[in-house]
Structure formats: structure tokens, C-alpha cells
């Protein structure tokens, strides 16, 4: 459970962009969370309340957009939704695969005034 340090890193990103845009208040934080990330929504929300206290992001709503685990075969170019973490290409049987999405934990945007 590393959500406390993860939320501190998230806050650093949010506050940097809020200050750069001279925000008085952060109302909403739109996050992208991949299916394969080890980060969990509920502890992030829990720690956010602590970490954001006394900052312009206090009380902001957290929104999570989940991304599916998608892989691409480097041999035949096929892209597919990975089931049960099986990275063998269902088209050609190739094992030279890259993750296209599903690993990320990102601040996509913030809503400020």
C-alpha cells in the first residue's frame, strides 16, 4: 500500500499546474488509472483528504477514468485486450508484445477557477 506517497506525488503534479495557471481553487482532478496499475481508488481518495488539507485543492472531486489492458504484437501489429495477463498474440502466437495501455496512473486534467 503505497498510496500515501503516491497521493503526495499526485498533489505535487496538481499544485504545480494549478499554480502555473494562477488557480485560486482546484475543483476537480481527472485521473487515468490503468487496469494493471497497483494503485487503488479508495485509498487514493482517503489519503487525498489528508494531503490536500490546507491547500487550494482541498475538497476537490477526484474522478477516475479506467483504461483496459491493451497489448500490441510487435511481429504482426495486432492489438488486443489482454485477458488473464496472457501476453501471447492471439493472431500469430508471437510473444514480442508491447503494452499500449493499462499501466498508467496519470493526471489527465484539472478543473480550476
Amino acid at each position, binding site marked *: *500500500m*503505497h498510496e*500515501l*506517497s*503516491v497521493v503526495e*506525488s*499526485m498533489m*505535487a*503534479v*496538481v499544485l504545480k*499546474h*494549478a499554480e502555473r*495557471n494562477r*488557480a485560486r481553487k482546484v475543483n476537480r482532478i481527472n485521473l487515468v488509472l490503468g487496469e*494493471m*496499475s*497497483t*494503485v487503488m481508488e479508495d485509498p487514493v481518495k482517503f489519503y487525498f483528504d489528508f494531503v490536500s488539507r490546507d491547500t487550494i485543492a482541498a475538497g476537490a472531486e477526484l474522478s477516475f477514468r479506467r483504461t483496459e489492458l491493451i497489448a500490441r504484437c510487435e511481429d504482426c501489429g495486432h492489438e488486443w485486450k489482454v485477458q*488473464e*495477463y*496472457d*501476453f*501471447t498474440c492471439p493472431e500469430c502466437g508471437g*510473444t*514480442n*508484445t508491447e503494452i499500449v495501455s493499462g499501466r*498508467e*496512473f*496519470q*493526471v*489527465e*486534467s*484539472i*478543473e*480550476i*477557477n
Partner: protein
Amino acid sequence: MEIEVLEGIFDANEIIAKENRALLDRSGTFMVNLMSSPGAGKTSFILKTLEGVEGEFSCAVIEGDIAGKVDSERIAEIGVQAIQINTGGSCHLEARQVNTALGRLDLGGVDLVVVENVGNLVCPAEFRLGEDLKVMILSVAEGHDKPLKYPLMFSESHVMIVNKTDLIPHTDFDLELLKETVRKMNPSVEIFEVSCRTGEGISAWCGWLKDRVRGTRAETKN
């Protein structure tokens, strides 16, 4: 007003991991990030590995623990430099902590650094340290069903060590099923079966590791 950010929350860690990488490249030092759950045998495995490469490489160990210095004392007892990082409750090592520890080593005189991560099969997999190799240990006593429960660790690691193989006859551990599952998740994974207690399989691992470390040294000289 909506502001586009598109910044990864682990980006700050990635930047420091790259700095660590550059630091290690300059001195031709190879770094292993060793991860497992508590009790899988990380420290015993490090001791066996140090013994196996002794004479050819100069080594150092970075020990990450939530508290205490038991592990670094075990390493120091055999005359290898060990730097202890206490994470103070945090469940994983981050690149910045390793950066500080690397700063305390004379890297020019070190061929191989082994980082013993905090015992945990979840969080350490998210944080790159600037390592050459991510090595994970699964011990027989933990069971062969762990890969699908901890997918990131098994799919991120370059090497899986199956430790405590001497226990297999006493358990229902299905080694072939484990290997089949992990190879689907991570087709390029290298798998070594070892027992730190009997020493079985250690020389195959050490032989493979030595080739990798030699490769790094050769690249730096050229």
C-alpha cells in the same frame, strides 16, 4: 476552467531513475533490483550470489527495509559494503533513496550493486530505480498461484528465481504450471530454480549473471 495536464504520477521517480542509470553507466556498474515478499529469501540469495561472483567482481549491497539493520549486518559480516536505507514505514524503495545510497558508494570501484527492495510483491514493481535487471524471488512455500494475484511484479521482472526448491517434495507446489503461467505473462522472462539452503541451482544463476555484468564492463571500456 479545465487545464490539460497529462503528467504521469510516477514521472518524478522516472526522472531520478534515469539519473541513477546515467550514474551507473559512467562507472560501468551493473545494478540488480531484487524484489520478493517478506521471507522469500532475498538476503540469503544475495549472500549466495556474492559468494558465487567473489573474486571476479567488486560488489556492494543497498538494503531497503522499513526499519532495522539486521540484513545489512548479515552482508557486512562477509566483508561486503552494505548501505542501509530505512524507508520509515514506506512499502517500497524509490529512485531518490537509491540515488542517495549510490552517492555514498565509490562507484568507480564497484562492478555490481544489488538492491534489496522492501519485502512486498505489490508496490516495488511500480518504481523503477535505474536498474539493469529486475529480479524477483518466489519461494515454494508461497504457492504456485501467485502470478495472477500479483501480475505487475511477475510481468515486469526480467528474472524470476524460484527459491526453496528443496521444499517441493513436501508440498503441492506445481513448478511446471508456475512456469507456464509466468511465461504467458512475461514471454522473455529468465527462470532459475534454486535452493539457498542446499545451494542447488545457484551456480547456473551466478554464471548467467556474471555474463551480464561482464557485458556491461566491456561496453564501458569500449
